[in-house]
């Protein structure tokens, strides 16, 4: 048993690699600060465009969304980070990762928000329209406040996935939390830094996980 502890929970190794891992954690947090707001922003754009576009436009958008969702995010990441330089576009690594993962996660956010909009009965649109409210005002004050509330647990769940998605960045040499843990593992010939990284991910995600659990118990609004 003590061999197990020495291998996976080695306090000396953890202490020595903690500086490296904290730097990695900061990179992960930065990636999240690009990917989550970016994904929500473009996801909202996709959802609104599909709601308001004429049928053919909505159909082509949904094709695009499905294509991106079916595309492995790892391949998308490699294509963008290592492909853009061929077009003489060389974004800093963090931004390249941010762009690739935002493209991926915005399609999921978009579908969730679209489901939220569709969860509101047409009679709410009619009531608003009968008082002379336009489409934008109806969306903003009647449909979205209810629709977003109906899908809050799903939005939070996708945010959780987005945070974990950023660990893919280690593949393209971005010094994120997972990458730094792998580096420390190599330096010490010991996997304890990986466990420490898991603990740091947990610290990052735990509040969100609990929030989702709390929201899951709440009744969904009647339309």
């Amino acid at each position, binding site marked *: 048993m003590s061999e197990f502890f020495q291998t996976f929970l080695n306090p000396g190794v953890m202490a020595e690699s903690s500086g490296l891992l904290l730097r990695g954690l900061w990179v992960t947090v930065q990636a999240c600060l690009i990917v989550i707001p970016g994904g929500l922003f473009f996801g909202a754009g996709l959802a609104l465009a599909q709601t308001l576009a004429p049928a053919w436009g909505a159909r082509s958008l949904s094709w695009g969304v499905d294509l991106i969702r079916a595309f492995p995010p790892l391949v998308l990441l490699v294509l963008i980070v290592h492909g853009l330089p061929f077009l003489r576009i060389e974004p800093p690594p963090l931004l390249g990762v941010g762009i690739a993962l935002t493209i991926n996660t915005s399609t999921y956010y978009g579908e969730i928000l679209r489901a939220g909009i569709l969860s509101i009965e047409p*009679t*709410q649109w*009619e*009531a*608003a*329209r*009968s*008082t*002379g*409210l*336009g489409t934008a*005002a109806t969306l903003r*004050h*009647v449909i979205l*406040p*209810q629709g977003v*509330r109906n899908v809050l647990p799903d939005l939070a769940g996708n945010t959780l996935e987005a945070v974990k998605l950023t660990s893919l960045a280690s593949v393209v040499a971005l010094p994120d939390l997972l990458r730094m843990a792998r580096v420390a593992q190599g330096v010490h010939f010991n996997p304890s830094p990986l466990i420490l990284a898991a603990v740091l991910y947990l610290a990052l995600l735990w509040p969100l996980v609990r929030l989702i659990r709390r929201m899951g118990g709440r009744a969904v*609004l*009647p*339309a």
Partner: protein
Amino acid sequence: MSAVLELRGVGKTFAGVPALRDIHLAVGTSELVALIGPSGSGKSTLLRCCNRLAEPDAGDVVFEGEPVPAGGAELASVRRRMGMVFQAFNLYPHLNALENAALAPRRAAGLSHGEAETAAREALERVGLGDRTSAMPDGLSGGQQQRVAIARALALRPRILLLDEPTSALDPELVGSVLRVIRSLKEDGVAMLIATHEIAFAREAADRIAFLADGEILECGPPAEILDRPRTERLQSFLSRL
């Protein structure tokens, strides 16, 4: 009497099935016109054609002397002056009573926040709910919800109210409170076009009653004439089954 709202030969077809045929009907200033008829006779469709929630296929809807515009800001402006009340209330469940009534004055009519709230408060007082302004819809009874819905329409100071079976979704003991509000609005001179199954109410409150069957107005006239001396067989059998 000058007409606030006039339908001239309005027709509407749903997937090849005619829902309204050649409807001619006018509602004058301060006039209350009741639409009666069996379910599916086209009462709702007629009301929805007035503010173009349903698009008429034929004929003209004329509001205050002008044809109701097809869309855009002009249609929105007409809709503000033509209040609508739905059978299922259709209140905004995430907003309280005051916010429900203040939303359109603020966001459609462009009043300031304070003006919109004042208009909403006055409208709620008019329907007897001045003390429930901060109540959420699911904390109100059906009758109270429908009165908030009436206040939502009134807050825009409309020239006419279109009421689509406003008491049909209510428990019997709550019907009276809504009908009382409608009666008091009539006394204040609000023009109304109301689809209803409350024949006793129509007899006592309506200036005229129009009987609709299979999308056509078969008879139209003062309550005594329509209810006591029905001319068509359809109306006679409709009244006998009540």
